[in-house]
């Protein structure tokens, strides 16, 4: 980076810091979701759409996307600086996660000029919410076995089948969809195709699914003779598996292009240090308990690890043995850490850990218990931790598949 660029970056960074200091919203008077997976009321939805639009308009979301598609046309470092500023001021999450993190980068990498013009700007502005249609009721982990049928009929594809765990399914305008176009393909993978499918056509219906937390957050989506334009196909027929794997790499952090910001409240272990400082267990201040202190230090060390691994991932000479190691391990390490962290946080609240969301006596309105239950969304969704371990074992460590 040149001296001029560095100067520009540091000015941009200072501006972002100032902007988030002034514009980050305070307590809206209702509980905000910790992640895009947890939006369960219209109130939350509207609030988060407005927030995302506002950040984008200010130039702090999509800063590194091309300017002709609504981005800022700046180097990635600028977006990173903006995200950092947002994090520092504790802004709410962005809810258009699939658009910003999966569909957007995919379009940038593989989309036609037309597709980019059609979709990208509305992803940034939260005008179009995107969802993802990979898992099916009988094939949660085994994506390659997807059975939803897409049959070509003239200028259309006709969709039949069902997808499950559709986050924001009831709000989304588009779905990235993995469907079966060829039943006589040489392998199950070769029969799959990838679509940018509208959710607003006839024959697409969503049924809300109640989450383990008791809240609603995602849907099952049913396709019954749903007819979508043929140009919704991404790439060619039969390339679905390849494209889906590529989008998973975006999610796993192994490939860049994300619009920026964050879609999960970034838990570091310090988020529970405040809790610990203000809590009692069995009538005694939590931080007086050496055993709790010891476990808290464990979590802080681990949380700090993860941040440091992000930093180290960008230093090539420190990643020579297994260059993809840190990025492919990222999801596994974070999601398991958050699950354990939240579980531990409950124990900090002592007797009040028996309360739940909605109880006036609960600590932080039951946030931590809910966050713990919600954390399984991340250890299960997007490839379970068990699948993630297979991926790291096989693709990073070179252990045999069979």
């Amino acid at each position, binding site marked *: 980076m040149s001296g001029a660029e560095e100067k520009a970056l540091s000015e941009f960074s200072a501006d972002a810091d100032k902007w988030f200091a002034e514009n980050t919203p305070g307590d809206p008077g209702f509980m905000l979701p910790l992640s895009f997976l947890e939006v369960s009321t219209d109130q939350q939805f509207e609030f988060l759409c407005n927030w995302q639009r506002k950040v984008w308009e200010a130039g702090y979301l999509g800063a590194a996307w091309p300017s002709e598609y609504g981005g800022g046309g700046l180097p990635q470092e600028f977006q990173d600086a903006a995200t950092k500023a947002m994090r520092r001021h504790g802004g709410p999450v962005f809810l258009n996660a699939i658009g910003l993190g999966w569909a957007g980068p995919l379009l940038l990498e593989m989309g036609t000029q037309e597709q980019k013009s059609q979709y990208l700007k509305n992803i940034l502005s939260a005008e179009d919410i995107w969802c993802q249609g990979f898992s099916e009721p009988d094939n949660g982990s*085994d994506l390659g076995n997807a059975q939803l049928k897409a049959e070509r009929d003239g200028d259309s594809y006709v969709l039949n089948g069902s997808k499950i*765990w559709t986050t924001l399914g009831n709000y989304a305008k588009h779905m990235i969809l993995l469907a079966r176009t060829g039943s006589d393909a040489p392998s199950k993978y070769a029969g799959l195709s990838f679509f940018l499918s509208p959710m607003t056509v006839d024959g697409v219906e969503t049924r809300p699914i109640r989450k383990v937390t008791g809240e609603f957050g995602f849907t099952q989506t049913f396709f019954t003779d749903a007819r979508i334009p043929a140009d919704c196909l991404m790439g060619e027929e039969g390339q679905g598996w390849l494209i889906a794997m590529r989008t998973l790499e975006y999610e796993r952090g192994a490939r860049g292009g994300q619009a920026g910001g964050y879609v999960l409240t970034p838990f570091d272990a310090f988020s529970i240090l405040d809790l610990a400082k203000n809590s009692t267990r*069995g*009538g005694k201040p939590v931080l007086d*308990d050496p055993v709790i202190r010891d476990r808290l230090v464990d979590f802080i060390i681990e949380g700090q690890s993860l941040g440091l691994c992000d930093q180290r991932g960008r230093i090539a000479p420190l990643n020579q043995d297994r260059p993809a190691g840190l990025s492919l391990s990222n999801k596994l390490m974070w999601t398991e850490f958050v699950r354990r962290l939240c*579980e531990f946080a409950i124990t900090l609240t002592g007797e009040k850990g*028996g309360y739940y969301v909605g109880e006036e*006596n609960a600590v932080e309105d*039951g946030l931590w218990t809910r966050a713990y239950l919600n954390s399984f969304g991340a250890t299960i969704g997007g490839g379970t931790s*068990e699948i993630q371990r297979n991926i790291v074992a096989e693709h990073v460590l070179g252990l045999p598949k069979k």
Partner: protein
Amino acid sequence: MDHLGRIGFSEEQADLLEVAENFCRERSPMEKVRTLLEDDAGYDTAVWEEIAKLGWLGIAIPEEFGGAGLSLAEAVPVIEAMGRYLLAGPFIPTTLAAQLLCDGGSDAQKAAWLQKIAGGAIATLALSEPDGRWDDTEIAATAVKNADGYRLSGVKTFVGDAAQAEIILVSVKLDDAPALMLVEKSALPETALRRETIIDETRRSYELTLDGVTAPASALMDQDRAAMALERLRLAATLLGTAEMVGGNRAVIDYTIDYLTTRKQFGKTIGSYQALKHPTVDAYTMFEQARSHLYAAAHCFNEQGTGEIATRMAKAQAEKSLSYAADRAIQFHGGFGFTYECDAHLYRRRAIWHASQFGDAAWQKEKLAALLF
């Protein structure tokens, strides 16, 4: 070490275990459990009457008061079975209240209430306070003597099944010493009880505001025995909570195994993957250890010193074991595990509940260190 527990198992326990298992399986199928989650009272009164008829409420009540004259050791298998089938109802609070009456009630109170309880009257306890203490070293609620009896004040939390109870045994400070008051629910103003939102949706818990509540002179329990009775009571609550956890632990492992032996992914039954298989084995061995501790605690409960050690060990192990098994159960059910429909979370919530009541595993271990070293 000789002051550690041993297992013994009486014929009564064996019989009760078998009968209770069958009863709970039949009376508490999962659809019923699910329906009751939404119910105000949270349990089936007809089943409660059956339980009373079976004599289970009187297991540990002396024969002179209409009970069976056995001990809490015989209540353990019954509660274990209830825990296994998530059978809802005020059995634990009522059983504990009866024990507290036996240990700390006046003769008149025992005569008036024990027989009724053995026959099905619901009783409960109001010990917890907003400061979240797990012992009775300080009690903020007070009773002040006046002409008619006592004027009570303060707030009690986690009063189980209070809305259904006929009597509530309340811990207070009276003349600067701990005391217990037997408060009749009918004497409470409408606004005294507020239902709390708790993590374990199979049970009902209430906040009790004592301000403005008065109790007759006869409400005072034996004050000389209050401190001792409270201490025993908390240990008894620890034992019974453990029994419920151990029952649930068995169920959640069975529930997980069911899924692992039927669900297929990548063309294979998922239970054949060691990634799921081996942690399930770990959950199982932890459970077996918890169950062994439970029966040692039940057997030795009344032995001075040994009973306390065995009970606290049992709770620590059961909480750890149930938490682990239920946490893995959610995970191993995959996407389905993340839904409310999957039963795994019912057990996970229950473990969180029991951790919150009467001291969690970490607290039990701190007590154990003091007892053992």
